[in-house]
């Protein structure tokens, strides 16, 4: 590295420069994480008792479930991803974040937008497009908040001291400009001036795929490729393979998402299925990078909380990718389509891969940027195991149940009601999984909010100390004299 060390700011300085924006992003994100899992749990209980909270229009399944999904995606995944991206870009670029007030305002604007969007969904103002449910009151604020945060990320990137790029920077910079493009396209083509007919569905699939698969992939992998080498004490194996993964991933994954059998011209599902099959290339590359980087690392790394989270996240990424490929395969998709297999894949990707990676990153970076340890850092391990159990209890039964359900749906001699009934035992286990996920999220929430609280107390103490400290006699004169000396 040809870095001029004398002019470089210290890592502590860089970390501290991100403190307030990151607390703003992660504080709200932790709150939405809990809100989302509470919504999800209530929605899930309705399968076992359809009458549960049925008199309240706000809490009907069709509103609560999208609200739960959006609280996880827009409430947690995006702001947490942006926070991690800002910090990573600052750290790798050796550039402190300047003008922190704008990202702080943007973070608050983002969370307000999510609040407005979620309220919109539960009062029946949803747009009706999957993963794009936020009405205008929510979508406009989050769009501009994202633009501001992305702009700050780009400014850090442009001011980097090391010109040669680390692979994580590729992933993160691409992610920064991915979302504005897809979100504006989806909103313009579907809501501002809606296109006619089934094209709406095609654009909806394109958007959802680019957000859920590509954006989360870019940020999550960008973070994993930074943290895994750092935490395992081995260099990334190798830069070229990681870049190969980046290229092939954005080249193929952008074309997935159109289900086979959709009522659209046949070339679209065919093209999509081909791209989904080719996903095996970036998946293998990512798996190889992760495996070769971590393999041979000291075993005691597994006692390291963030390392476990991020390692598990990468495993889930590969698993979710395989599930996505299965759903895209024309031989398998007739069974998996319209079943719980799809939601299982989505949850594995959003929670198992992305949220877990973000948890690991947050547990690593938040104490560093604030300069205070987590108040309940022992809970990190508990959080890891509870979340892991939650993911397993949610995803495994729904994936298996989805196949059972799909086989029953395929057989016209089986009554439809039987396919629903066959799902019930699986759904029961998945509800338990959601309960575990909620508990894990609560632990994360407690730690993040506790850390924010400690930080505020420190600020208050500093302020009080400043107020109480007696003015040094003649201190103003002294500083004046000092200035004159400097000028001289």
């Amino acid at each position, binding site marked *: 590295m040809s870095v001029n060390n004398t002019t470089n700011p210290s890592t502590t300085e860089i970390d501290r420069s991100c403190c307030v924006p990151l607390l703003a992003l992660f504080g709200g994100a932790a709150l939405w994480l809990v809100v989302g899992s509470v919504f999800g749990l209530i929605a899930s209980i309705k399968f076992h008792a359809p009458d549960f909270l049925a008199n309240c229009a706000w809490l009907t399944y069709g509103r609560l479930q999208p609200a739960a999904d959006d609280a996880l995606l827009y409430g947690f995944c995006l702001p947490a991803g942006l926070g991690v991206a800002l910090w990573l870009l600052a750290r790798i670029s050796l550039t402190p974040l300047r003008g922190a007030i704008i990202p702080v305002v943007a973070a608050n604007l983002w969370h307000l937008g999510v609040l407005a969007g979620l309220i919109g969904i539960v009062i029946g103002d949803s747009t009706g497009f999957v993963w794009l449910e936020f009405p205008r009151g929510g979508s406009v604020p989050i769009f501009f908040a994202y633009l501001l945060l992305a702009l700050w990320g780009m400014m850090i990137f442009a001011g980097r001291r090391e010109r040669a790029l680390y692979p994580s920077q590729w992933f993160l910079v691409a992610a920064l400009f991915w979302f504005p493009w897809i979100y504006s396209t989806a909103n313009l083509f579907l809501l501002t001036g809606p296109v*006619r007919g089934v094209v709406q569905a095609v654009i909806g699939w394109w958007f959802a795929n680019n957000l859920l698969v590509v954006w989360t992939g870019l940020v999550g992998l960008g973070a994993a490729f930074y943290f895994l080498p750092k935490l395992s004490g081995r260099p990334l194996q190798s830069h070229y393979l990681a870049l190969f993964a980046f290229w092939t991933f954005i080249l193929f994954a*952008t074309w997935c998402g159109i289900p086979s*059998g*959709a009522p659209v011209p046949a070339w679209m599902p065919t093209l999509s299925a081909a791209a989904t099959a080719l996903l095996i290339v970036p998946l293998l590359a990512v798996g190889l990078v992760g495996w070769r980087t971590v393999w041979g690392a000291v075993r005691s790394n597994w006692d390291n909380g963030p390392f476990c989270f991020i390692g598990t996240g990468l495993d889930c990424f590969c698993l979710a990718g395989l599930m996505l490929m299965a759903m895209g395969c024309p031989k398998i998709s007739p069974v998996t389509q319209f079943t719980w297999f799809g939601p299982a894949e989505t949850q594995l990707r959003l929670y198992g891969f992305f949220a877990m990676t973000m948890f690991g990153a947050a547990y690593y970076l938040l104490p560093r940027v604030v300069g205070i340890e987590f108040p309940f850092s022992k809970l990190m391990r508990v959080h890891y195991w509870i979340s892991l159990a939650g993911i397993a209890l949610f995803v495994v039964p729904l994936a298996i149940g989805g196949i059972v359900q799909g086989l029953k749906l395929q057989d016209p001699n089986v009554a439809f009601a039987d396919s629903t009934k066959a799902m019930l035992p699986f759904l029961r286990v998945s509800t338990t999984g959601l309960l575990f996920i909620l508990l894990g999220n609560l632990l994360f929430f407690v730690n993040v909010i506790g850390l924010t609280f400690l930080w505020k107390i420190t600020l208050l103490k500093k302020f009080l100390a400043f107020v109480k400290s007696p003015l040094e006699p003649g201190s103003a004169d002294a500083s004046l004299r000092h200035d004159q000396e400097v000028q001289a």
Partner: protein
Amino acid sequence: MKNGFLVFLISLVALGGSWCGFVLAPVSQLGADKQTTILNSSDPYPIGRPGEANQGLQVYRANGCAACHTEQVQQSGVACDVILTDNGKNPSAVYQACGASGMVREYRAWPVRLPITVVQGVNKESADDAVDKITTAGGKAEIHIIATGSDIARGWGRRHSVAEDYLYDSPVQLGSLRIGQDLADVGARLPDANWQLIHLYAPQSMVPGSAMPPFRYLFQVRKIGPVPSPDALNLPKEFAPPSGYEVVPTAQARELAAYLLSLRADVPLRDAPFTQPLAVSKP
């Protein structure tokens, strides 16, 4: 700026490519789609939904019905039947022609009452072939096309859904999960508005064991006035309100029911042909 521009360029190419493929191309291919005509007729399809049903689409959206219901029928293929309608002047030749195509050997007592199905469940080519042979022998035959697949066998539709079905809907809500039945053709399957309303108010009263949550908030339970409301639901006992009360659908419930009844995909199209039965039963 070493490499920095390259990252931008590669991302631009990748995302821009898929944008052209799955946003621009579909818009230019389908965005200007117009009405088509029903197969073998000059009637336009689709005709927009009536006003109340169109408002019902918004009730469907607001309550997230698409979280549990799809609106897309699928089919695995088509099967053709050949129906002999006329023996012509030389029945034995027609009989031989039928026999040669590997059919009706069991019809010893020829001629039989017409029309009769002489070939069943073959592909379009074989059916055309059989019709050719029969025509050459002097008889007349026609082909009936029947869509196949589990959705069709369940009675969820007569054919698979096509792009035209959604021409006038906004938002288009195809759905991706079948916790409940597919609704693309529910208006033809369950054409009774009263059934729909009662089912919305108390799903378990119509479908025992249903996992559908009741949508009671779309209804009003009120004291019966001097004259009972003509719209009041006729509920089974265990779902009925206490005596002296009646359940009346709100405008939203009526709109939603009208929308459900307007969901029909029961006309043959060029892209999705099937043959209507000779006597079409009116709902």
